């Protein structure tokens, strides 16, 4: 307690914020069940949990967005009652939402000034700018107060949000999944900033479901599951597996077992494929690859090196300049999407909301997206809703999709459940070849585990799978062979036994495979 009680920003430090016995009920669910949580000055406290564990609810209570049904909140030992975020702000609590609350057409300074009370109702932007410069000096946050938000990158916009929170007196700052929208470099920069804020005596709460980030950054970790706190542990040498088990409630196996299966005939053959991107510039410069029945071929590479174009061309959404694509020995180069689907192609697109599902359509309607016109779902032009409901019900059970009902619009489901729905739908058509693009991006651990196991099981049953992923761990966990793509060319093909992260990394950066 020898440290000064004011922060470099000039605001009062929050030595401790404590939530005791917090209960929050929503119709039908207990979102927070007697939760205890505490954060101190000079600490980064990670709040870890699967989607739906109650992390966001708890933090919205601390920020005054929700009122708890039971429980107390103490700031520096004094009980407080927040009726709105304004109350929380007044006590030095700030929150940075995943979606930035910035007006694109205003400048940084104007955004910061937005909604602030001014003495005479006049906007004193010069004062705001001066203070912003001070703050960015103190905290090492490079920001031009006169820049328009639309001119800034996502990482810079997040910096604006942080400065805004500091400006408004944030001594305790809650960051809701701050890395979800950032590139790896931006994540590194963010972590530097956060660590610096910690040194200066801020209390930080970091909401996440990404284990390695939590390990990199935090001092203590509180794991939540099903609305309860599982445990709060110091971050010193705790293993990812342990954290994952605490999150999910059982052992998690992100690398499914791989039984030896006999490699079948070639199902997907690509020869000398040349494809242009949307700007009509070459995206693929002569790609050749084979995918056999019962194998997973992983396409590794930094995004933007032709992966999207490859997937789209195979799916029939993009025209090839030259080359050949064969499915089961028959050319599909000029086949329509519908013909390719009928020939046994299935596709898990990278963007599940834009390409994989229709958000306002129900779960049941999305389950029959490609084969809605075929029996048993339709007789002539009329739907058989009984058959559709039975089919949907079976897939919901088999793939453990969490949805309130079959009629629920898909946009109301979580990312992991939408992804499971797409997987269920594609596999229910019993495909010969499955193209899976970023199948686990942005989904939580148990869904990731489930999806990976399902893909492996399909491989074991003889499906030919082309896996496109930026996540090298995923490529290594699933692939039988790994193809590295760089600037539209194949840098090399590596068998899984010979795969080595460093070598793959070099190839992803453009080095050709050594013979």
């Amino acid at each position, binding site marked *: 307690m020898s440290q000064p009680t004011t922060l470099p920003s000039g605001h009062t430090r929050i030595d401790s914020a404590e939530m005791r016995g917090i209960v929050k009920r929503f119709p039908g*669910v207990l979102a927070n069940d007697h939760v205890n949580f505490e954060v101190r000055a000079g600490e980064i406290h990670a709040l870890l949990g699967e989607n739906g564990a109650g992390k*966001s609810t708890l933090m919205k209570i601390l920020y005054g967005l929700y009122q708890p049904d039971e429980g107390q909140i103490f700031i520096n030992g004094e009980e407080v009652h927040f009726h709105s975020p304004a109350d929380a702000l007044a006590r030095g609590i700030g929150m940075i939402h995943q979606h930035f609350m910035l007006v694109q057409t205003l400048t940084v300074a104007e955004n910061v000034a937005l909604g602030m009370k001014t003495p005479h109702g006049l906007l004193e932007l010069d004062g705001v700018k001066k203070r912003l410069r001070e703050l960015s000096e103190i905290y090492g946050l490079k920001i031009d107060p006169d820049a328009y938000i639309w001119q800034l990158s996502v990482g810079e916009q997040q910096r604006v949000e942080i400065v805004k929170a500091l400006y408004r007196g944030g001594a305790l700052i809650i960051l809701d*999944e701050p890395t979800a929208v950032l590139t790896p470099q931006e994540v590194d920069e963010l972590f530097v900033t956060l660590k610096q804020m910690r040194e200066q005596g801020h209390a930080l709460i970091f909401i996440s479901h990404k284990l390695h980030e939590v390990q990199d950054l935090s001092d203590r970790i509180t794991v939540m599951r099903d609305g309860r706190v599982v445990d709060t542990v110091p971050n010193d040498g705790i293993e990812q597996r342990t954290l994952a088990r605490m999150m999910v409630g059982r052992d998690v196996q992100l690398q499914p077992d791989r039984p030896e299966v006999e490699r079948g005939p070639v199902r997907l053959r690509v020869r000398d494929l040349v494809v242009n991107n949307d700007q009509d510039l070459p995206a693929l410069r002569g790609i050749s690859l084979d995918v056999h029945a019962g194998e997973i071929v992983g396409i590794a590479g930094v995004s933007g090196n032709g992966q999207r174009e490859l997937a789209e061309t195979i799916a029939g959404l993009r025209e090839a300049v030259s080359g050949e694509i064969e499915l089961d020995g028959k050319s599909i180069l000029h086949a*329509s999407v519908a013909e390719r689907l009928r020939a046994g192609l299935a596709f898990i697109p990278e963007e599940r909301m834009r390409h994989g599902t229709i958000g306002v359509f129900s779960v049941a309607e999305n389950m029959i997206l490609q084969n809605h016109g075929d029996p048993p779902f339709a007789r002539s032009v*009329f739907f058989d809703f009984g058959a559709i409901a039975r089919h949907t019900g079976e897939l919901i059970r088999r793939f453990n999709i969490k949805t309130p009902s079959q009629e629920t619009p898909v946009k*109301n489901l*979580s990312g992991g459940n*939408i992804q499971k729905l797409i997987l269920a739908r594609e596999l229910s058509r019993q495909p010969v070849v499955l193209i899976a693009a970023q199948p686990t991006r*942005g989904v939580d651990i148990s869904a990731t585990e489930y999806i990976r196991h399902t893909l492996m099981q399909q491989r074991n049953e003889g499906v030919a799978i082309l896996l496109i992923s930026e996540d090298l761990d995923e490529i290594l966990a699933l692939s039988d062979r790994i193809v590295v793509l760089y600037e539209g060319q194949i840098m090399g093909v590596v068998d899984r036994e010979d795969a080595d992260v460093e070598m793959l990394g070099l190839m992803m950066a453009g080095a050709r495979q050594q013979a």
Partner: protein
Amino acid sequence: MNSWLDRLRTRLNRLSGGDPMVALAPLIAALLALVAGAFILLALGKNPIEAYGAMLEGAFGSERNLFRTLTRATPLLLVAIGICIAFRGGMINIGAEGQLFVGAVSATAFSIGFADALPGWLLVILTLLIGFLAGAVWGAVPGVLKARFNVNEILSTVMMNEIAIQLLIFLLSGPMIDPAEVERGTRIPQSAPLPESVWMARLAPPSQIHVGVFIAIIAAAVVYVLLWRTTLGYRIRAVGQNRDASRYAGISVPFYLALSLTLSGGLAGLAGAVEVMGVSHRMVEGFAVGYGFSGIVVALFGRLHPIGSIPSAFLFGAMLVGADKMQRDLQVPSATIIALQGLIVIFVVSSDIWVRRRTARRLAQQAAPTISAAEAPASSH
């Protein structure tokens, strides 16, 4: 008996998400609009209570007035259900006005031309069909332009309206002019009367109400079945909601874009045919002006649902008839009526946004634990 009621209740509950405001909000909004309109009436020195009294009286005051309302609602409903198809298919059809004219003119020309050649029942069916087809062609042109060349359908349908209006004037003052007018030398631009065999049966003479009202209601039911119970409607809605995902699913996006506008035009054309066969019995200048535009509002008010469009069309029909009466009784300028309608539209549309936000909030709260902000990447694409 009970089970039937229960079914209806669960159905309504599902539609409204258990929130009575979903159904009540538009009505409350319409009432508030009338309150706002009262100030306009006061500014004109009219007594709003008297004015609205006249309006109510005009629309519902007697059996005869009620029939008038239904007569006006008939073409509105046919246009509106067509609009439902187009909007659900992601096509903004502003061209119902022109599609309606073309349908009416074609039906007129056909029925006069084949009056003696065909038996009455067949002539009726074919005349309706011709009206539908003509409107469909008028919708297909911008539909195909959109599908093929990505021509903005809002602009092209508006332009097609202009063409239809000029075409109508040309035909009525030239090729299709009533020979009697030429003989008399008055040359009023109107067509000869339709053969009596295609006149829609009047339900309660001397009122103009005719069997077209049943055609419209049946058509609404058919459109409902089409949109929600057939693969065709599924594809139209899929394309309307997400063209990319539809393409991924192997649906021919251009075809269904063009189709939804074609069907939409067809129903507007049918509205024109029914109107000329049921009410005016000949094409005149100024025939059914405004129905094509009001039909859009009717469809929006009915939440782009063919069944919802039925009460909506009734309400707007009542407003048109009631406004006439108000205008006659109180000598209110006719522009006031248009202003009142505009107010109702603004209030109702606002209430719709309010209800949607409210529903979203309720859903967010209910679903907060399962669908937290943490999962927003799923929807941010």
